[in-house]
């Protein structure tokens, strides 16, 4: 929808003017309008957070328990029994740091891919920039991430691992991961509106993706010459970046990360445009 909104302060003489007409060709992202609706973004995220652990006995502890239990299982099977190499980091810490990043991604993608369909009522009854919906579900996932991060600090203290200056780059990697999740989430949520197959595909894809990412094992397992190719999986770059920022190992982001960055940028931009292009049909198709 091409909508020209010249939003001036609400003086009675200068009313905003909206033109509604069929759109065609390339659409603008209208990020400015998104900014105007930032409060709605926070309210929707806040709603998701509030509602998620209602009527659960353990409440927000689930946010920590999920990666923690994952860590225990991985440590027993991969750390102890299979003796997977972990770059010299204690395996529990190694897997937990990977799982921390992984859960943020998996949760964001799962939630955002179903978010548009789940908010059908809103979409068919009220206008707002639709981008707010998948964004809000990712924002809500960050709250769980923050809770799980606290436990990581505890684990690091327990194993006596001190973060170096690289820890300062952690926010960058978090943003990078959000961009990855958003790019994937935008594609899947848009597809989900039209093809409900997505709902059944996502859990499987997430599972396979976990094994394709260096959560259980280290990316050093991949032969050096294949690493740029491995970087096509952006989560490889993300998780290695996390481990480097938090634990100082295995090494600073290199070629693999550069490849991942390119993939993420492409994914995010194409996702944004695809979403914006299709959103005009949401209310009719959903």
């Amino acid at each position, binding site marked *: 929808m091409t909508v020209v909104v010249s939003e001036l302060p609400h003086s009675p003489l200068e009313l905003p003017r909206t033109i509604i*007409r069929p759109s065609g060709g390339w659409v603008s992202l209208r990020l400015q309008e998104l900014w105007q609706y930032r409060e709605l973004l926070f309210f929707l995220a806040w*709603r998701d957070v509030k509602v998620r652990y209602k009527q659960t006995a353990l409440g927000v502890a689930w946010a920590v328990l999920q990666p923690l239990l994952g860590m225990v299982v991985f440590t027993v099977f991969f750390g102890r029994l299979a003796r997977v190499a972990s770059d010299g980091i204690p395996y529990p810490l190694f897997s937990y740091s990977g799982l921390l990043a992984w859960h943020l991604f998996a949760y964001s993608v799962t939630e955002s891919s179903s978010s548009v369909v789940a908010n059908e*009522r809103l979409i068919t009854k009220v*206008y707002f920039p639709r981008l707010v919906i998948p964004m809000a579900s990712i924002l809500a996932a960050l709250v769980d991430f923050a809770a799980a991060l606290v436990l990581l600090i505890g684990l690091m203290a327990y194993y006596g691992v001190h973060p170096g200056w690289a820890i300062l780059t952690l926010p960058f990697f978090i943003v990078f991961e959000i961009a990855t999740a958003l790019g994937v989430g935008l594609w899947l949520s848009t597809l989900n509106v*039209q093809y409900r197959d997505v709902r059944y595909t996502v859990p499987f894809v997430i599972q396979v993706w976990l094994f394709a990412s260096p959560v259980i094992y280290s990316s050093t397992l991949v032969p050096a010459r294949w690493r740029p190719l491995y970087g096509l999986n952006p989560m490889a770059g993300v998780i290695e970046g996390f481990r480097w920022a938090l634990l100082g190992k295995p090494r600073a982001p290199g070629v693999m990360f550069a490849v991942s960055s390119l993939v993420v940028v492409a994914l995010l931009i194409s996702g944004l445009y695809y979403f914006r292009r299709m959103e005009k049909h949401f209310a009719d198709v959903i």
Partner: protein
Amino acid sequence: MSNIAIQCDGLSKQYRVGGRERYKALRDVIMDGLKRPFRIRDDLRSSGDSAESESTIWALRDVSFEVTQGEVVGIIGRNGAGKSTLLKILSRITEPTQGQAEITGRVGSLLEVGTGFHPELTGRENIFLNGAILGMKKAEIICKFDEIVAFAEVEKFIDTPVKRYSNGMYLRLAFAVAANMETEILLVDEVLGVGDAQFQKRCFEKFRQISRGGRTIFFVSHNMAALRTACQNGIILDCGRVTDRGEINTVADRYLASLSKHNGTESVETKSFTVGEVSIRSLDGPVIKTFDDIEIRVRVLAKTDIVSPGMFLSILSLDNQRVAALAFNDFLNISGLKQGDWCELGLRVGKFPLLAGEYEIEIDLTDLGHHKIELIARRYNFEVVESPVYEGRKIDQRFGLVGLEVRAFGGPVQNALGPRVGPRVGPLDNANHKV
């Protein structure tokens, strides 16, 4: 600056129906892709019927109109006439296929009360969430918070999850948030159709208050009586096109007249008469409304000589209650008829009190000179259309069958034992305050 709030030029909206499934499965798309090399042959084979399999309908066709600032417009039309589609386009939920609309001012759309309410959240939380969804700023909501809670009358339960609310509380709260939107243009779809009569009246008053504030309101409702009181102008939509536009009462009457079926003119026989025509009409307009003056005419042909023609005429509700019965000869005696004479029997009723609904007329033709009473084998039905009675409240069967002309009085009283005019009615004398 022009004072046009909404201007539509040739708005059209096309929907795809039938043919394809509503949800395309990804599998189908992949299969389509795989079949592509063979597509050409398929296309050749099925080119004839491919156009029909994907049929489309126009939910709106070439809709053009202007609404000036401060105008309150009612959109009238049958189900599927395109009313909701029009509101959806104007509120930017869906996009037109053709044409354009220009809107000056912020638009608040109220297509449903309680959009985005979450049952697990408390009343307080839902006010903020719903407000944000409707496009209000947080500061604005804080500012209006007390007013919203007071209007909804949920002070005590404001920190209770709304899933524990009664239906009425839920609706009141949802409506209260929406009614406090402060946009220059408000699009309202059938929100008055929910809740009990008391709630509807309050909503309705709130809208009148809003419209007095000089804001443009676009109203879709099936409650014709509400539209008549709330709106100045009406637009009739039929099959996606604007078929009529003008002052609300004129437009509503024309619309209702176009709907109402015409009464039977085919002749019915009794032993001594042939009934030519039975008609009932309002003397005040094209449709019968409560408190109109009405006229009932019966034309009969005498099959034998009649000494004193007359009739008993009953008005029945659809559940067969006799609402009123009249004997023609109580009012008028007319001269006898020869075989083959035509005769007209007419009754005029002033301030016809029946409330909106369908009724039937049952007629016995009489010749009291020969002690003949002959029932006409069929009944004639007519409809009283919804119109404002009791200050425009939506009136249905719960209000009974007849309308009364009422004027309420009263207020705080200094001395309850003061001088009185007229007899005391009983201990509930001051019940009038609540009417």
